[in-house]
């Protein structure tokens, strides 16, 4: 009796396996921005003091099968939620995803105008559905970019940077730092990078001082840094 049960069980196991085809994607093609709408971007002219126009990259991605030919997509400006004007930006004539690709980087051109030195202006982009693309995730259908030339203490100017590298922050110091080093953004966890550019800036201040052109803060005090090495 037991043998019969074993034989039956064995037969059931054999019958459990079957061949199945791999299913491929067969739904619509969706398009969305890579970044969430809540993760806004900043296009700052601070790091490019000599440039009047900057190209800012915006990345879109396809949820679906890559097309065998170049396919256009559509981006518009949400005027209601945009404070920038066409004097501040310029969109490309056409947006398209190349053949065989699932993402594209389009370049939005921002123009330096006087008002962005006093306040940041907002540009809200919106993806529009087309014959080829439907809209992707809700939170990725819009992109917010702030364009600015306003100087402000960057996140990387931490207490550690203040104490051991660049000293107390001031807008004037930051602007000069960018001017002399070409760096508006530094990885404050990268000690080598921090030290290198701090030394560069320190030398600038020292040379000015030795040439009887001491750099001063707006309150008249000598502009100094904390880093001693170099």
């Amino acid at each position, binding site marked *: 009796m037991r043998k019969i049960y074993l034989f039956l069980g064995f037969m059931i196991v054999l019958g459990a396996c079957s061949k199945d085809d791999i299913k491929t994607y067969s739904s619509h093609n969706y398009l969305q921005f890579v970044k969430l709408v809540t993760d806004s971007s900043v296009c700052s002219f601070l790091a490019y003091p000599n440039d009047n126009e900057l190209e800012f990259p915006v990345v879109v991605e396809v949820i679906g099968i890559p097309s065998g030919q170049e396919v256009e997509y559509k981006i518009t400006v949400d005027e209601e939620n945009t404070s920038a004007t066409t004097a501040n930006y310029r969109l490309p004539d056409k947006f398209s995803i190349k053949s065989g690709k699932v993402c594209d980087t389009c370049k939005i051109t921002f123009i330096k105008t006087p008002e962005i030195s006093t306040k940041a202006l907002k540009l809200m982009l919106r993806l529009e559905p087309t014959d080829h693309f439907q809209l992707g995730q809700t939170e990725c259908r819009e992109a917010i970019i702030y364009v600015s030339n306003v100087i402000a203490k960057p996140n990387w100017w931490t207490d550690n940077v203040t104490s051991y590298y660049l000293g107390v922050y001031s807008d004037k110091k930051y602007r000069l730092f960018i001017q002399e080093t070409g760096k508006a953004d530094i990885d404050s966890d990268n000690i080598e990078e921090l030290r*290198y550019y701090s030394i*560069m800036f320190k030398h600038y201040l020292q040379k000015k001082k*030795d040439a009887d052109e001491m750099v001063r803060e707006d309150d008249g005090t000598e502009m100094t840094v904390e*880093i*001693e*090495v*170099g």
Partner: protein
Amino acid sequence: MRKWILYSLFTCFLLNACYEDKGKYSLIDYNEVTLDVVTSLTKKNIILGDTVRIVPKMTWKYPDRDTLSFDYRWEMGLGNVVSTERNFEYIPTGCGQFDVNFYMTDQKTGIVAHASHTAIEVQSPYKVGWLILSEKDNRTSLSYIRRDSWQDEDKKTHYEWVAYPDIYADLYPGNALGTGPIKLENVMTGGEEDEVMVVQRTGGCYYLSGADFQKVAALHEEFPGAAYPAGVEPVDVRNGGWHDFVLSAGGEVYWRRNVGSETQHVSAFIDIPLYFEGAQDGGKITKLFDLDTKACGAVLMYDEGNSRIVGRITSFNSNSDSGPLNFIYTPDEPDVVKFYDLTGYKVLYLGDYGDGSGLMAMLKEESTGKYLYQNMEMDSWIDFNIMNCTQEVFAGSDVISDNTVYFRIRNSSYLFMGEGNRLYFYDVNTKRVKLFTSYTTGNIVEILQDADAGGIGVALDDGNFYIYKLSTEVLADDNPGEKGLLFSVSGLGKIVDVEWKWGGSYNWAFGRY
């Protein structure tokens, strides 16, 4: 039934638990031997290429009994028998430390006596000694001199010197160093290892292995992008532990922060030269003073164009950043010429002594031509503090010139001076100058002490190098050079620099061979 089976099994086990004791307990008064070595015939610390010799010395309990019926066995590693002779002779094929065990078995009783010979050390033939950099046949030549020692039966130490002229070319004939030799620098790399930096004008500057002088790295590879910044031509380097420095011919000094005080080839030099504030050109350095960087805790540099000495704090101990030097004089005597303002003066020499507690300077007052001798205490804990600085016209002014070569012995009170072909020494306590020796040819280009100032090396530009003993007895002699001469070698080429090779951190840290 079960019970009977169990009882039977138990009985069987019980019977087998007892067995006959076949041990021997009768004592044998054997000929006990105490093992030692014949010191005068034993050589356990050797240079690679030499032969290890161990001659056992046997002291018998009963010397009149047969002491020949023994088997001998020498093992290096468990079970690895390398010799069955009574005396051990072995030629190692590599450097390092290894153990040798000696066994002698009494053929009659089978009793084995054992002695362990640990710490047999095979050193690189080039570990510790004198390094001499010269120009020979229009190329850079590196020579090396080693001091060997051995002890006689009375435990008295004897020394002999072995010279390896042009050793780099001998070892690597197809891989020339370059041309235009300038400087040497011994670089500590941790433990029992070191490197030698060769600075030369063409062919590149190289770190050479301290074990076999093989090229380890090129200096330009230690800069970002594996290339010197534009216009950099190294003329001197200084190994400063946590910080290294490179002096360029244009007067710029480049530096790097190492990840460890004896860790090389990990961090890159920063391609921004040091800026020495207080001068519009940021300093144009003509010289890195050849001080004991570890003892002084700083690298002092001659900003000759701006008439000052500048520098950077550094350390082999403290993991702190290398800041600028601020000379603070206590007391601040107005008549003493200050390092931060040498207007009207020229620095001819700086020498440290007393394990970094003292510093002396030889200055020339340009308006009068007088040679001034300064002596001071110093410490570089935070600032560069100079205490009790004295200044006087040098008592030996009539034997020196602007081209005199100096060396302040670090462990004693003597300043050696090489003026042309004459070598003098000055006693800083008695202020007396005495001729040590003079040479028939050549001019003195370098004077340097050995590890513990038991000797000095004197290099001449005609390729001769001399080693002298430094002792009170020698210095007091009417002819110290003749009395104290230990060794000499010639034909080294046009000597440009001499460096003491420590062989590793332990010797260097304790100032010993």
